[in-house]
């Protein structure tokens, strides 16, 4: 630990060794104990540290904490299996209504053709043929 490095440490972290880099703390404390200039630097830094400490203030976060946990629980409730089933069912119902409504709107007349559109909507383009299954 040389004086230049000690000065850099105090300039950055202040006079309290608890804030100094852990791996350099002991060496810095040893130098401070024997170097007169170091003691003067520490005194100056300590004055600013005390001024900074005067602006300490602990925020009261009890209500905020309760709100955050409440939002967490609400989020968990939406993601629960019961709610997933509910929303999946609701989505399916809405989708089914939309397809039925859309088919009714686009087809100018009812009859066999409209029936084909409706059934076609539920046929998979990738249905296996007898060739696929080796039949």
């Amino acid at each position, binding site marked *: 630990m040389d004086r230049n490095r000690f000065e850099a440490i105090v300039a950055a972290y202040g006079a309290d060794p608890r804030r100094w880099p852990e791996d350099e703390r002991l060496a810095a404390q040893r130098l401070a104990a024997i170097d007169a200039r170091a003691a003067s630097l520490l005194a100056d830094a300590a004055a600013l540290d005390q*001024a900074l400490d005067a602006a300490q203030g602990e925020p009261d976060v009890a209500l905020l904490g309760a709100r955050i*946990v409440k*939002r967490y629980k609400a989020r968990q409730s939406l993601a*629960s299996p019961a709610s997933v089933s509910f929303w999946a069912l609701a989505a399916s119902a809405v989708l089914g209504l939309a397809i039925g409504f859309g088919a009714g709107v686009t087809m100018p007349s009812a009859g066999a053709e409209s029936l084909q559109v409706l059934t076609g909507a539920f046929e998979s383009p990738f249905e296996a043929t007898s060739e696929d299954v080796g039949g």
Partner: protein
Amino acid sequence: MRDPDADLLRRAASGDAGAAEALVRAHLRRLVSLARRLLGDATEAEDVAQDVFVQLWRIAPRWRDQDAKLSTWLHRVAVNACYDRLRKRGRWVGEEAAADVADAAPHPAQRLLRQQVAQAVNDALLALPERQRAAIVLCHYEEVSNIEAAAILQISVDALESLLARGRRSMRLALTGQAEDLIGDAEQSS
């Protein structure tokens, strides 16, 4: 060393409300305190802290133990959120403007009560460029280690020390001539 918060987060991701509450209890006060000092606004600070936890619940299922410590992640997200708000407010003070900051600071009154001491210091802190302010808040007020502070700010330790030294120098100039009076007044009123 295993991060104990990682276990709590894993349990919170699985729906354990107790684990979620423990995480909030462990970290919320520091996040609000950090955001308050960066933004100078208690309401905005609470909004930032709330948003940080919303993000945390969102990424919780994907958290991996080899990622950064949870406290580092939380602080980093909070600092970046504060920076975003400051930019939007048009209150971003870049390093290039730093030379003018101390000179433009108003000269404080000779004798201050304890509340005025705190106000003077807070004003000087808010006048700093954001990155210098963040460095001082993390290392002095939050007592985060230099290594963790550098990780939070995503800079090297050398760069962190440069920010700290410049920030402390600016604070000293802004409070110049008043430090001993401020401390003396604080001692008399305590």
